[in-house]
C-alpha cells in the first residue's frame, strides 16, 4: 500500500485522533493524539490489509520551545508481508509526559521504551519493567532533553562518590605484585 493511502486508512478509522500527515522524501509521518495510541497500534498490527508486524524503531524527540506540544514519541513501523512503512508520531505534553506502552503489541518495544523513559522522562503506562537502562538507576535529570546541558550536569552524580568510597574500602585486596 502507498504510504499516503495508509495515512488515509488511519484517518478514516480514527478521524479525531489524526492531527496531521506530512510527506517528506517519500516517507509519511502521521501525527496523532496520544489518548487512543494503543488502540491505533492494535489496529495497525491486526488489520490484514495493513499488518504492521515489525516495529523498526521507537524513540522520543524534544521540541522545546518550537512546538506547542513539547515531546513526540516516534514509532517507525514496517510490514513484513506487504512491505510498506509508516511513521507514527504521538504528541506528549510536558505537563503529563506519559503515554500508553505498546509492549503488548510489539514485544520489541520494551527496551526502546525504557530508553525513551531514561533519556526523556516520558513514562510508559503499563510497561512491564520501566527502569532506567543506559544511565545509572539513581541518575537525576533526563539527558536527551534539550534543556539538559551536553557538557554534563551542574552537580556531580552521587553514585560516583559511592563507587569511589567502595574502591577505597576494597583497597586492601588489590594485587600488590
Amino acid at each position, binding site marked *: 500500500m502507498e504510504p499516503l493511502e495508509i495515512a488515509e486508512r488511519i484517518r478514516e478509522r480514527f478521524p479525531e485522533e489524526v492531527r496531521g500527515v506530512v510527506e517528506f*522524501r517519500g*516517507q509519511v509521518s502521521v501525527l496523532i493524539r496520544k489518548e487512543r495510541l494503543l488502540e491505533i497500534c492494535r489496529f495497525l498490527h491486526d488489520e490484514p490489509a495493513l499488518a504492521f508486524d*515489525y516495529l523498526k524503531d521507537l524513540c522520543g*524527540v524534544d521540541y522545546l520551545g518550537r512546538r506547542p506540544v513539547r515531546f513526540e514519541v516516534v514509532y*517507525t513501523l514496517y510490514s*513484513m508481508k506487504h512491505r510498506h512503512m509508516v511513521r507514527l508520531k504521538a504528541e506528549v505534553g510536558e505537563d503529563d509526559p506519559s503515554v500508553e506502552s505498546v509492549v503488548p503489541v*510489539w514485544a*520489541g518495544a520494551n*527496551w526502546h521504551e525504557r530508553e525513551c523513559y531514561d533519556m526523556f522522562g516520558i513514562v510508559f503506562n503499563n510497561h512491564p519493567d520501566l527502569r532506567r537502562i*543506559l544511565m545509572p538507576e539513581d541518575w537525576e535529570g533526563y539527558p536527551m532533553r534539550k534543556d539538559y546541558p551536553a557538557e554534563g550536569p551542574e552537580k556531580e552524580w552521587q553514585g560516583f562518590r559511592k563507587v569511589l568510597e567502595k574502591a577505597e574500602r576494597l583497597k586492601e585486596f588489590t594485587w600488590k605484585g
Partner: protein
Amino acid sequence: MERVEKPLQTRELTVSMGPQHPSTHGVLRLVLELDGETVMKCTPYVGYLHRGTEKLAEGMTYLQALPLTDRLDYISSMANNVGYCLAVERLFGIEAPERARFIRTMVCEMTRISSHIIWIATHALDLGAMTVFLYSFREREWILDLFEMLCGARLTVSYPRIGGVRNDVSPEFLDSLYTFTEEFPKRIEEYETLIDKNRIWLRRTKGIGVISAEEAINWGLSGPVLRGSGVNYDVRKRFPYDAYDRVEFDVPLGRNGDVYDRYRCRMEEMRQSARIIRQCIEQLPAGPIMTPDAPKFTLPPKEKVLADMESMIHHFVLITKGPMAAPEGEIYVATEVPKGELGFYIVSDGTGKPYRMRVRAPSFVHASVLPKLCEGGLVADVIANIGTIDIVLGECDR
C-alpha cells in the same frame, strides 16, 4: 528398618555474570537466577559504554558527526559510516556517483566478512573450539591490511563521505582484494572442517536458543538473527541502496531459529559477501568519486585549500557553519550492517546541524531478547546465546 527421607536443602542462587566476564563480548552484565544449572530468570544490564553519541551529534554539524558513527559498532565501522552518509544524503536529496556507490558496496561487504570472522572466532572460542579463533584472525588481518591500504586506518576508518568516498581505490588494492575473494571461500571451508561436523559443536548449538519466526518479528530482530528463524528480510534486498541492486547475491535462510541455524546463515553470508565484492570489482565503472555538489558537504583536499581560493572559501564555510542548510524534515534510513538493521532517524530543523539523530542499533534490540533465549535453559547455553546474537556493546549503549 524404616527409611527416612532427609529433605535436600536447595535454594536459588543469584549470579552476576559480567560486566568483565570474557564471554559477554564487552561490558554486558547479566544477573542470572539459577535453580541448579537451570536459568530461571535472566536480567541484562547495559549502559556501561554509554557515551551519549546521540546527544553529541546534536551539537555537531553533519560533517563532524561522521566520526562518531565509527565508534558505535567499532568492528564494522565502515558499514556504520555508509549508513550515516546515506541517511544524510537522502535528507539533502543528493546521490553519490556510480563509482563511489560500487566502492561503498565493496567496503561494506569487506566489513561484513571481518565482523563475521570476529563473531565466529569468539563464538567458537566461547564454546570451546579454540583453533577456529587462531585461523580466522589470519583472514581478519588480511582485511584490515586492505583497509589500511585503502584509507590509512584499520579500525575506525571514517572513509565514506557525504556524497561519495574520501579517496579513489588503487589498482593494487583491487588486485589484492580480488585475490582475497578467490582465496577466502577456501578459508571458510577450513573453518567448517573444524567445527561443522564436530559433535561437541553440534550438541552445543542445535536446538539451543530457539526463537520462532513470529516471535523474532515481534521482537524486532534483524539481520542473521532474524533470518536464522526463516524470515526473508534483508534491507539490501528490500530497500536496495548503493550498488546492491546491481549485483547478484542470495540471502541465506535458516529453518529452526536455533544457534546452529544462525551460525549457518552467517557462514553462507560470508561466501555471498565475497561474491558481491568480486562482482563489484568486475563492474566498477570509471568516473568521479564525489557528487558534483561535494564542496557544499565535504572538505576539499588539503592541497587545494592552500592553493585555490574557491576551495578555501568552502573549507572556511564548512568548518564554521557546517554543510549547506538541510531542508526541514525527518528521515529514517536503514542499512544492513553485519549485526542487523542499522537505522538512522534524523530530524532536521533547517540548519547545518541535526536537531535529533537517533541510532536504531541492532545490538540494542538483540540484547533485549536475551532473557527470552536464556530462560529455561542451562547456564552453559547462556554463553552460546550471547555469542549467537552477535552484539557489540559500543553500539548497544551508543
